[in-house]
């Protein structure tokens, strides 16, 4: 989102792609955090027989959540550079926005150029 706000050349496709990637990253981050915290707490409680307080679970969750967010962000940036070239600084959202722009604009202009409207008018 920050990169979308900072660059006046960004358009609605960039915003839509950034929002989509943010949702995907949030879901992945939450899943990864839940998985890791569950494994740690399971071993602590079942394996070591330790009593783990709510504060400890919260502390571990916050730390793992930050780590998961950082990991996913780094992976997103790397994949973005692999798929969109070294000049792509927006991660995968930059690649998705480019595809959306090409595909949606192509179909929109196809309609706008009258191919479909002509068919409708001729059908009437």
């Amino acid at each position, binding site marked *: 989102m920050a990169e979308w706000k900072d660059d006046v050349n960004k358009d609605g496709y960039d915003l839509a792609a950034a929002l989509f990637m943010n949702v995907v990253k949030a879901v992945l981050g939450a899943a990864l955090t839940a998985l890791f915290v569950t494994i740690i707490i399971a*071993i602590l409680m079942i*394996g*070591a*027989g330790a009593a783990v307080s709510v504060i400890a679970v919260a*502390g571990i969750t916050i*730390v793992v959540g*930050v780590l*998961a967010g*950082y990991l996913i962000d780094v992976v997103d940036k790397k994949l973005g550079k692999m798929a969109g070239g070294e000049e792509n600084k927006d991660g995968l959202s930059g690649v998705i926005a480019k595809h959306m722009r090409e595909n949606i604009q192509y179909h929109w202009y196809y309609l706008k150029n009258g191919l479909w409207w002509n068919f409708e008018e001729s059908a009437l």
Partner: protein
Amino acid sequence: MVELRGVGIVRALDSSNPQILRPSSFASFSAIVPLLCVIFSLPLASGAASEIAFFENPIVVILLALGAAFLLIIPVPIVFRWDWKACYYGFSLLCLGGISLLAAVPLLSVVLYGRAPIYALLVILFLYGISHFLWCRKFVVLYRGVFSDDNLRIIIYQEENDAVYYMRRGDEFLLRKRYKFSQIPSDWLIGVSVGSALLMAVDMHAVAGFIGLPFVHAFLIIAMIPISCIGAGIATRGFLLFYLFPAKIKKITGKTVYVDVVGKYRSNNK
């Protein structure tokens, strides 16, 4: 009671102990923790020195070697059908020590690639050293006392004709009832540590500039102190109970130590 090769008659631990804790599966499950810690640490190591190529970063190389080792270890307990020997059971607790990697990698990054002043580095290293030493020492002092006292040792290690059994319920009785000992650092310590790390986010650019690394490294160095202590403490306990003392028992009695999770412990006071 079942016959084991070369051991004689031992308790039917497979039918009495919960299957979920059988080392053949639980140890493999536990080995996922250090592997995940390596995966989580890799971006921290590479992000600390983005000007160095990924595979030329020494921290990354060490992490990759560790990751490969843990990846190879995961199927070992399943393939070799680890039974209830203490050394197999203790592996799960040692794996929890891997959590400390999440503190060690940011610390190493700050030392190798950061621009933090030397006094700040010394304070951080001193904090880590003293907190981990004192926390692990608590486990060592407690269990050394238990092991050297015949009346207490029998509660944890029960000797029979065929083998010696680590009685988990006896261990839990000593920790919870007799010593009232928590294996997790106190809530206020966790709250202060994670809370301070979160508070630093208010001026994250200044903090990142101070240590010369991304803010996430500074966050982890502060927030991970008690969480790293948890991993180090549990690993120390695992080493003492399932490796050091069983080795001493084996030397004295010649008997192998097995883990009895649900059996009732004996006590000389009864």
